C-alpha cells in the first residue's frame, strides 16, 4: 500500500508540478472567462444587436383599469429609441379570433387581461415565446403599480402556435453539446495520453524492469490509472472553479454601468441555468460519466502501452482508441445539428461512446435519469470486465519486448495471460 501511494503521488506530482500544467491552466482559465462571458463581451463591442423588427402586440383589456394599455406600452418602450419597439394595439375581446391570429402575419402576440387589477388573469398567445418572460414581468410590474397592497399573483397562461417547436430547446442542446463535449473529450484524451506516455516511457527506457522488480505489476498498473484519474478530477475541478470565477466576473461586469444587456442575460451559465433547473443532477451525472468513462479508457490505454515497446509503437497501438474518441466527439457535435437525437441516444448506451455522449444526452433531456443510470451501470460493468481481463495481460506484456505485428503480439499476450488448462489424463 505504501508503494502504491508513493507511485500515485509520484505520477500525480509528475503531471501537476510542471510548467506545462501551470501554463495550460492559465490558458484554460482565460478561455473560460471569455467563453462564458461571450454575451457580455459581444454586447460591450456593440455586437449582438441585430437589426430588430418591431413587435406587434394586440392587447385585450377586460379589467376596469382603462389606462393599463397606455401605461404598459409606455413602460415597455421606456428609454428606447424614438420609434417604439413594441407596437401595442387595443383589441376587443369579441374581435379576437385565435385561428386567424395564428395565420395572421401582422400580429406577433396577443395579451388578454381579465379579472381585476388586484386579481388579474393573463393569457398570452404568442408567436415569439422568447419574449414571454420579459413581457410578462413588465406587465406584472405595471399591475403592481396600480395596487401595491393586496396584490395577487396573476394567473398566467401562455399559448404557443399548435405546430410550435421551441428553437431555444434546439439551441440549448447545441450549446450543451459544445459546453460538454469539448472538455470531456480533452480530459479523456489528456488522461489516456498521460497514462500511455508514462508507461511507455518507463518501458522504452527499460526502467520498468527495475520498477517491476520492486512493485507488483498489478500495483504499477492500478497506480498509473489512479494517478491519471486523480489528475483528471483535479483538472476537472479546476475547470469548474474557473467557470464559477468566470461567471462571477461576468455578473460583476454586467452590473457595471459599462454594459447593458438587452434581456437580462449576464452569462452563458445563467442562460443555461434558466433552461436547466436540475443542473446539480446533470453536473453529478456528468462527473460520474467522466470518471467512470475516463477509467474505462485509461484501462484500455494502459493495456496498449504495456504491449507497445517504443513511443512510435504506442502511437500505432492507441490510434483505434483515439479514432473511437474522435468518433464520439463528432457524434456529440453533429448529431444534434443533424437532428440525429435518436442515434445519439442509442450511441450513449454503447460503452466506448458513453463517456462523451451520455452526459450530453442527459443534460439535453434525451436521456431520463433511469436511462442515464442504466448507461452508467453498463459502463461500470464493462470497466470491471476490462480490469479483470487487462490486469493479467498487463503483467505478461509489461516486461516483454516482443516486436512482432500488433495483432500477433496481442494474441500471444492473451494466450500467455490466460493459458489453456491441460486436462490430466
Amino acid at each position, binding site marked *: 500500500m*505504501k*508503494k502504491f501511494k*508513493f*507511485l500515485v503521488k*509520484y505520477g500525480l506530482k509528475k503531471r501537476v508540478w510542471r510548467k506545462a500544467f501551470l501554463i495550460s491552466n492559465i490558458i484554460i482559465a482565460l478561455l473560460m472567462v471569455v467563453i462564458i462571458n461571450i454575451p457580455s463581451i459581444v454586447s460591450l463591442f456593440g455586437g449582438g444587436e441585430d437589426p430588430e423588427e418591431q413587435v406587434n402586440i394586440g392587447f385585450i383589456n377586460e379589467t376596469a383599469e382603462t389606462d393599463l394599455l397606455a401605461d404598459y406600452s409606455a413602460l415597455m418602450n421606456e428609454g428606447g429609441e424614438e420609434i417604439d419597439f413594441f407596437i401595442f394595439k387595443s383589441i376587443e375581446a369579441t374581435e379576437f379570433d385565435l385561428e386567424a391570429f395564428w395565420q395572421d402575419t401582422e400580429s406577433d402576440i396577443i395579451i388578454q387581461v381579465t379579472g381585476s387589477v388586484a386579481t388579474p388573469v393573463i393569457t398570452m398567445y404568442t408567436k415569439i415565446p422568447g419574449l414571454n418572460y420579459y413581457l410578462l414581468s413588465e406587465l406584472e410590474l405595471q399591475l403592481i403599480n396600480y395596487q401595491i397592497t393586496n396584490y395577487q399573483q396573476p394567473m398566467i397562461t401562455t399559448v404557443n402556435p399548435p405546430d410550435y417547436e421551441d428553437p431555444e430547446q434546439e439551441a440549448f442542446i447545441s450549446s450543451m453539446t459544445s459546453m460538454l463535449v469539448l472538455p470531456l473529450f480533452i480530459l479523456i484524451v489528456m488522461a489516456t495520453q498521460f497514462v500511455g506516455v508514462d508507461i511507455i*516511457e*518507463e518501458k522504452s*527506457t*527499460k*526502467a*520498468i*524492469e*527495475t*520498477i*517491476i*522488480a*520492486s*512493485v*507488483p505489476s498489478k500495483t504499477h498498473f492500478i497506480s498509473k490509472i489512479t494517478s491519471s484519474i486523480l489528475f483528471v478530477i483535479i483538472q476537472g475541478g479546476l475547470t469548474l472553479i474557473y467557470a464559477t470565477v468566470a461567471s462571477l466576473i461576468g455578473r460583476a461586469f454586467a452590473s457595471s454601468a459599462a454594459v447593458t444587456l438587452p434581456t437580462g442575460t449576464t452569462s452563458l451559465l445563467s442562460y443555461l441555468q434558466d433552461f436547466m433547473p436540475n443542473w446539480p443532477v446533470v453536473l453529478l451525472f456528468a462527473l460520474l460519466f467522466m470518471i467512470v468513462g475516463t477509467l474505462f479508457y485509461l484501462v484500455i490505454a494502459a493495456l496498449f502501452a504495456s504491449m507497445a515497446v517504443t513511443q512510435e509503437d504506442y502511437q500505432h497501438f492507441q490510434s483505434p482508441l483515439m479514432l473511437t474518441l474522435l468518433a464520439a466527439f463528432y457524434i456529440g457535435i453533429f448529431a444534434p445539428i443533424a437532428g440525429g437525437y435518436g442515434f445519439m441516444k442509442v450511441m450513449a448506451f454503447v460503452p466506448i461512446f458513453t463517456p462523451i455522449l451520455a452526459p450530453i444526452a442527459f443534460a439535453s433531456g434525451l436521456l431520463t435519469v433511469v436511462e442515464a443510470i442504466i448507461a452508467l451501470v453498463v459502463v461500470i460493468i464493462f470497466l470491471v470486465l476490462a480490469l479483470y481481463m487487462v490486469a493479467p495481460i498487463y503483467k505478461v506484456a509489461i*516486461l516483454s519486448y516482443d516486436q512482432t505485428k500488433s495483432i500477433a503480439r496481442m494474441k500471444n499476450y492473451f494466450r500467455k495471460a490466460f493459458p489453456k488448462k491441460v486436462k490430466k489424463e
Partner: protein
Amino acid sequence: MLEVKNARMLYGDLVAVDHLSFNIEPGEIFGLLGTNGAGKTTTFRMIMGLLDPTDGEILYNGKKVGYHNVNEIGYMIEERSLLTKISVKDLMLYFGQLKDMEPKVILERLDYWLKRFDITDYKNKKIKELSKGNQQKIQFISAIINNPKLLVLDEPFSGLDPINMELFVEVIRDFQKKGSMVVFSSHQLDHVESFCEKLIVLEKGKAIIEGRIDKVKKDYKKLNIRIVGDVDVEKLEAIPGVYKVIVNSNEIIAKIENEDVANLVFDYIRTCKNIMKYDVEQATLSEIFIAKVGQSHEEV
C-alpha cells in the same frame, strides 16, 4: 542463502533454463556465464521473482523471492534501465522509495556513492546528459542504494573502461566483505576468473560447467606450457599429447592433454638451445568455456 533448486523455464516449446541448481552463501560472489541466449537473463528474472519457474523453486533465506523480501535485493539489468528525462537525484529518490527507503537516507547514501564514483557534479543533471559510462555508474548505484543483502548484476561491466571496472569490482568486494551475496553475469571471462569463487556456465539453458573455479580448472585436465626460447615448433607438435602449439611474438604456448604429457615436453625443451623460461599453467576459463561450449554444440 540463495538456493536455486532444479529451476526450469519454458517459453512455449523453448527450454530457456533446464533444471538449473546452485547455491550462493553469504559473502560469496557467484558468476553466471554463457553465450547470448544461454538463459542468464531468464535465470536472473526468476531469481528476482519477475518470472515464475515452470518447475523447481528459488529460495532466498528459505523463502520464495517475492515483494515481501525484495527490499533486501539489488538488481541491475543488462541494458541501461534509467528514466532519462529526470535528474540523478530524482531517479534515486524514485527507485529508492520503491524499496521503501526514506528520502533522507536515499540522499545521504547517494552523496556517498556519487563521491565514491567521482561524479558528485552530476547529482542534479538529467540522466540523458550523462555519458554512457556515467549512466552505467548511476544504474549500479541504483542497485546498491538499498545496501542489498543479495546483489543481482546482469553484465555489470559491459561498456566500462578498465579503471571504472576496477572501481565496480572494489565496491562489489566491499559488499562481499559485509556478507552480501553477489550473483553476476559477464562475457569477460578472464576478469571473472580473478573475481569470483564459484560459477556456472550455461549453454542453451543447461549448466555445462559448474562449481568452484579452482576445481573446474583442476577437473579440466588440459594444461598450457609457456616457453621462451628457440624450439622447433614441428617437433613440439609431434610430441604425443600436444594438441596445439601457438606461436606468439615473445613466447610459444604448447597446449597439452594432461600432466603426463608435460614431462615429455620438458624432456624435449631440455634438448633445445637458448631456453630462457618455461612453466606449466592451468587452462584459462576462456579456454575451458570455449572448449565446453564447442563440445556442447557438437553434442547437439
